[in-house]
């Protein structure tokens, strides 16, 4: 069973998503980047940015979207966010301060841009990646075959895609 077996091309939904998506993405980026001075921040903005991919998947089919956005990109977002957050925290420790003691960072306005960095590079990346990843993993679902033969789920990405396509 492929994930897009119930996908029906809808002119209305595709057109709406084409028109609305740039604005939603801009709004998500605005919430993320402006979170220090206005309501919002990395968590909310990251969720909205992740929703953009979900909208695209609903309009153009989940399977093509999964192929367009590779597993490496999703994992890179999630793990990269954790690494970025930790690295900013550990950088100030390396400079002799406490964890996340921004004022030691050798940048312009260290506290302000430290907070922005944690929100944008850390939290927004983790949340948007997790939203997209949960969506893809739920969409892939379970088939009776993967339950009966768990080794199927341990094969590499490319082989997995080939098998998912051939399961219908």
């Amino acid at each position: 069973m492929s994930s897009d077996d119930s996908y029906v091309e809808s002119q209305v939904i595709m057109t709406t998503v084409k028109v609305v998506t740039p604005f939603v993405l801009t709004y998500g980026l605005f919430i993320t980047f402006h979170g220090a001075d206005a309501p919002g921040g990395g968590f909310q903005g990251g969720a909205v940015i992740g929703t953009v991919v979900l909208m695209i998947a609903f309009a153009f089919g989940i399977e093509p979207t999964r192929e367009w956005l590779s597993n490496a990109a999703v994992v890179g977002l999630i793990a990269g966010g954790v690494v970025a957050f930790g690295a900013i925290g550990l950088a100030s420790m390396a400079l002799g301060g406490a964890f996340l003691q921004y004022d030691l960072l050798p940048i312009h306005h260290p506290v302000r841009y430290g907070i922005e960095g944690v929100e944008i590079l850390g939290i927004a990346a983790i949340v948007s990646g997790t939203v997209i990843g949960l969506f893809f993993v739920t969409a892939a679902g379970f088939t009776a075959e993967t339950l009966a033969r768990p080794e199927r789920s341990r094969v590499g990405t490319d082989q997995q895609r080939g098998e998912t396509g051939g399961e219908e």
Partner: protein
Amino acid sequence: MITPIEATLLAFVLATALATALFCDVLSSIIVFAAYSLGMALVYTYLLAPDVALTEAAIGAGVTTILLLLTIAKTVRPPTDALFESVHVPGAVVMGAFALVLGAAVLPAMPAIGAESAPVWANPEVTQYYLENTYAETGVQNSVAAVLAAYRGFDTFGEAVVVFGAAVAVLLVLDREVFA
């Protein structure tokens, strides 16, 4: 006293919450649950908590709804003719008594919104400190962001790692190694 807007919002939230629990059809439950989240986002906005409202709108009404819809698309939507679940009488009695105790004893004891006796003002030196010194010390105007990322940054790092851990846990439970 409660304003008409507040009363309408609260009635809407209560009605959608009740409908979520009572609808027999899973799809109907998911849709009124999204409406409930939208109502809660409006309540949070009305209570001057826009950060929480944004989260509720994005996660509660948006992402959760899509994931639940995807779940019934991938599993089964049990066929049903009845509109509402039949009410389990003993359960309804217990929950009714619980709601009665909450409404009669607990709610009147809570401080009014914005009251001086509210817990948020119980330590005025802490709250006032953040409100007065955030901009001077961090250069950001949203003191919520400053508390999250600067004053309580280590907690937030833990929370971010929890989200990361949730993503890993989902992969483990589903016995997969890739997202895409």
